[in-house]
């Protein structure tokens, strides 16, 4: 089971205020994880990545295991600790405020 954390705006949108747990087929990649996330919560289509190009939205980052995975290839396997559910895959909205 893969653990996913989404930012506050998206928690509001899906009505889910805790970590999300997803079944993701092997090999577990960014693309497959996000496919599974959007399949579970169709309202998230377009809110994390572009619906047609699948490019990450400009103000979104992907973190896991204290690493920034935002620029990793979409089809690269995620770290082992994410694949085993030991660590969450964290979708982050860029900091803004002041």
């Amino acid at each position, binding site marked *: 089971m893969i653990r996913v954390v989404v930012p506050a*705006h998206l928690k509001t949108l899906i009505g889910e205020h805790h970590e999300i747990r997803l079944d993701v087929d092997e090999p577990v990649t960014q693309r497959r994880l996000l496919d599974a996330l959007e399949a579970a919560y169709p309202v998230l*289509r*377009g809110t994390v990545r572009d*619906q*047609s190009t699948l490019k990450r*939205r400009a103000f979104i980052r992907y973190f896991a295991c204290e690493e920034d995975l935002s620029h990793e290839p979409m089809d690269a396997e995620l770290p082992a600790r994410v694949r085993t559910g030991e660590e969450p895959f964290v979708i982050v*909205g860029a900091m803004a405020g002041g």
Partner: protein
Amino acid sequence: MSGVRVLVGTSKGAFICTADGTRRDWNVEGPLFGGWEMYHLKGSSVDTDRLYASQSTGWHGQLIQRSDDGGRTWRAMGNDFAYDGATGTHQWYDGTPHPWEFARVWHLEPSLTDPDVVLAGVEDAGLFRTDDGGTSWRELPGLRTHGSGPKWQPGAGGMCLHTIIVSPADERRIFIAISAAGAFRSDDAGATWKPINKGLHSEGIPDEDAEVGHCVHRIALHPSRPDTLFMQKHWDVMRSDDAGDNWSEVSGNLPTDFGFAIDVHAHEPETVYVVPITSDAEHYPPEGKLRVYRSRTGGNEWEPLTKGLPQANCYVDVLRDAMAVDSLDDCGVYFGTTGGQVYASADGGDTWDAIVRDLPRVLSVEVQTLS
């Protein structure tokens, strides 16, 4: 008993205010979609329980919400606003070519006859349509691909298509306005378009009388006079009596003719409302006095309406989509401010009260008259 439902879009959520026909005591619900920018909410005129809302943030993009029960419950609808074909370029702020990029939906205009049909005006300027209640959207590309498209340029708020008026006399006739391209009209349900900017005069563009390039802020129409349009331009209040083919200035004795919002009384087609704003640099009322101006003569002669509005130290703005009128016998007029107040007048503007204060920045106000 009759009543009204006021739909308020703000920079941090939506609010729904309801009252009976007296419009004295208000119930305020919200925030709905807290934290999200709600650019516009509007109800269908043929099914007042059917509401549509534009929801967005810079982080997560655009969503469309729909309610089938007057705003009690909502569900997310389709949000794939893909331009049709090659997008080409428009002018960027510095005059260089810039590719069309979808940013958000500024305005939703439900059909006058079918609650499942809605037009959406978007930034970068384009017009989309749904025929299935918001499930899917397709662009009407004839507007964006009009030959003048490469000359269009964004205003300070972006290159937004912010005004959509479907003619009550013929649903195939559509008026739209874009900042800063100007006004356009289609007579074939959006397939083809012509600029309707003759008579507009805008300092700040190379050819002050150009066919396109004018920063039109808002257009309003009375249903009984489908060929008469009133326009609040960046500067100047304008009027057309031939469906936009020709415009003449009706700013008259206004203290300043800069502003954003404009609307027409529900039962008096020559009674028009504007909220003068000091200037393009100073987006607040002159002298710190919030005044709605009313003309009962279709323009030129204007009177200030001040009772119940702050007349000192008021420095809010009223944005282009933030004024509306109801259709009760004694016409109600409503507007929202960037300071978070929503004001209502139940007597055509003679007196005003705040429905609610201290909301986030108000982006849009629409009202539904309920039987």
